């Protein structure tokens, strides 16, 4: 603020009151951008510039000769005479030559902020004072706006747990870290910049270090913005999941000038996702267990068959061997059968164990036809128990799908069991479940389970996939809900259509595995 004004007026006032000088003085007064108010030592207004008139809304007649405190809101209004008296007695300068921000009062009663600087006119008696006022409403508004938007940004970053930064390569320029970034990385606000090597060594989780370093290096080429999720370990041992987006800014020589980036703390989201996944897996496993529980009778039968054959063969062998003219051919054939039947029982148990085992979900290339054959052992036990035939109709060759084989079997088994239940009252000639696979028009593998049972009641169709909806006395109501979520997680669809004459068909699709899959 304006030392120019002050010296100009000081000069003008010094020569006051010659008539020529009076005109110059007036011209300056009228032309000045700031409002100029001249008062005497008692605060009485002597001059009130054009700009002052515009600013305050007074005409000179309304203010000249009156106390300047009329232009101030409280508390200065009541205190101004005191300020002047003190100054006159002590010569102490509080405002003069210094300038400050004050509030001013318009004629209409409204207030506005302004920069005030005051000069003392020297060489006159009694002394006079010249006040320069500059309306700073707009600047104030802009400042407030800026503060507000900074506060909002900070709040937004806090809420989103998102930090941003600007970092210069090679230490040139002023690095910026947002406060939230400091919090995310667990460092004090105002800490020095973190060098990349340091960041990789001391923050990034060892398991992710190589991957992150490679991504950073790729970003340096300027062609590939950084977009990576990784974990960091804070000094207190806390592990956080971060989503880091950044871009390198290059100069004309394609050297990195600076990095601009955001780091999003997604720990909570990941944790929630993990929790949801664990819950889903537990539920899926529970459902498999309860399916097996419901199938226990059939499975016991399936294991009893080979066991009883083994026991009978063994005793037959004993009885043959004690005879003087034992037929060893019969014995050898029986021993072979004993071996085969033991393996058969073992196979049922192996499949059962596989099916109910609580295990990591693992996607792998799966041959659908083989999978269904494998499954039919389990499914057939149930079918036999209910005097129903299970027919397998696999179109071959089928492309490989990428899936978790056990979960896939779970889906098929669920559908087959539903089909069997739907036919409990069906007449003998209709008691058949057809399990078929084919490649559909979109090149996806489609598995269909068709029954010729009672069909679906309209009210059942509506809730079919709702968890805990069941039409069975002993059902959990989870089968279809879980089947659908498994199929969806595999990128497929599960739906149903009426079968040609009676009953229902359930279909699901699975996307085909890419020709070359590299494990990750």
């Amino acid at each position, binding site marked *: 603020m304006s030392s120019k004004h002050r010296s100009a007026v000081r000069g003008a006032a010094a020569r006051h009151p010659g008539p020529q000088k009076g005109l110059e003085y007036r011209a300056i007064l009228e032309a000045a951008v700031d409002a100029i108010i001249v008062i005497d030592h008692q605060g009485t207004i002597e001059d009130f510039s054009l700009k002052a008139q515009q600013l305050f809304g007074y005409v000179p007649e309304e203010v000249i000769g009156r106390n300047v405190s009329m232009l101030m809101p409280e508390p200065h209004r009541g205190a101004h005479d005191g300020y002047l008296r003190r100054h006159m007695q002590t010569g102490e300068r509080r405002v003069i030559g210094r300038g400050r921000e004050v509030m001013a009062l318009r004629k209409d009663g409204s207030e506005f902020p302004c920069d005030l600087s005051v000069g003392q006119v020297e060489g006159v008696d009694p002394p006079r004072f010249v006040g320069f006022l500059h309306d700073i409403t707009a600047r104030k508004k802009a400042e407030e706006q800026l503060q507000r938007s900074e506060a909002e940004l900070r709040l937004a970053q806090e809420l989103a747990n998102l930090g941003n930064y600007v970092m210069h390569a090679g230490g040139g320029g002023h690095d910026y870290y947002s406060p939230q970034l400091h919090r995310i990385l667990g460092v004090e606000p105002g800490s020095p910049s973190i060098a990349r090597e340091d960041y990789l060594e001391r923050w990034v989780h060892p398991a992710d270090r190589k991957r992150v370093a490679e991504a950073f290096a790729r970003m340096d080429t300027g062609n590939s913005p950084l977009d990576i999720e990784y974990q960091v370990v804070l000094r207190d041992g806390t592990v956080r999941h971060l989503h880091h987006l950044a871009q390198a800014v290059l100069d004309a020589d394609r050297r990195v000038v600076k990095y601009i980036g955001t780091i999003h703390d997604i720990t909570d989201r990941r944790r929630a996702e993990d929790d949801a996944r664990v819950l889903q897996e537990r539920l899926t496993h529970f459902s498999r267990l309860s399916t097996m529980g419901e199938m226990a*009778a059939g499975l016991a039968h399936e294991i009893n068959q080979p066991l009883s054959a083994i*026991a009978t063969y063994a*005793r*037959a062998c004993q009885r043959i061997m004690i*005879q003087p003219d034992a037929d060893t051919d019969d014995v050898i054939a029986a021993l072979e059968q004993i071996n085969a039947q033991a393996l058969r029982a073992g196979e049922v148990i192996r499949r059962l164990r596989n099916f109910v085992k609580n295990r990591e979900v693992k996607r792998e290339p799966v041959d659908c036809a083989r999978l269904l054959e494998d499954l039919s052992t389990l499914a057939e036990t149930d079918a036999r128990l209910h005097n129903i035939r299970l027919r397998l109709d696999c179109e071959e060759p089928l492309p490989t799908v990428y899936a978790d084989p056990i979960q896939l079997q779970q889906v098929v088994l669920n559908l087959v069991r539903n089909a069997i239940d739907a036919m409990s009252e069906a007449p003998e000639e209709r008691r058949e479940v057809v399990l078929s696979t084919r490649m559909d028009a979109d090149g996806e593998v489609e598995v269909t389970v068709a029954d010729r049972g009672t069909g679906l009641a309209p009210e059942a169709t509506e809730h079919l996939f709702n968890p805990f909806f069941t039409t069975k006395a002993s059902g959990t109501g989870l089968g279809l809900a879980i089947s659908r979520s498994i199929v969806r997680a595999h990128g497929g669809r599960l739906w149903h259509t009426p079968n040609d004459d009676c009953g229902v068909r359930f279909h699901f699709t699975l996307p085909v595995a890419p020709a070359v899959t590299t494990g990750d």
Partner: protein
Amino acid sequence: MIKEQKPTVFVVDDDAAVRDSLRLLLKSVGLPVEVFESGQDFLDADRDDRPGCLVLDIRMPGMSGLELQVKLNERHSILPIIFITGHGDVPMAVEAMQAGAVDFIQKPFRDQDLLDRINQALDKDAGSRRMLAERNMIRKRLESLTPREREVLDLVVAGKANKVIAGDLNLSQRTVEIHRARVMEKMEAHSLAHLVRMVLEVERPEA
């Protein structure tokens, strides 16, 4: 009905291993055995009037063991049936017993338990067949009687004395005595008690 046909154990089980192991076990103890994969196969083979017994899996696809039992009852087969059940099949086993099965055995079983049951069944079958044969013989003898002889027989069996019979039939007591001797001879009865037993055997309300 031909005597001296050797009793055979018929096995019907859809499980190849179970069927074959039973075949071998029965062969090892010298019992003639024939195995069938399904109830229908057994019906088609027309073995149900042969002496022996039937070892039948209660739970089979298509025609179940119970359904085969019903069909055999319809054919008036007297072949004793031993059902093989899994566990949890108790209600079915009860149904089978009510329909006249001789026994049931739960899988997996001790071979001796099965063989004992088979032997009992074969004994029962032999007994039934003997009884049937005897009844047929008695019926044949009865058919050889003249109407007059038959009248005398009925009154004798009813416990009437010759004099009473003579009065009832308006015959001389001597004539009654001659008829009565002919009846005893034709029926090959050793005594009056024997004669009565034979007649009751075939003329009980239920055969």
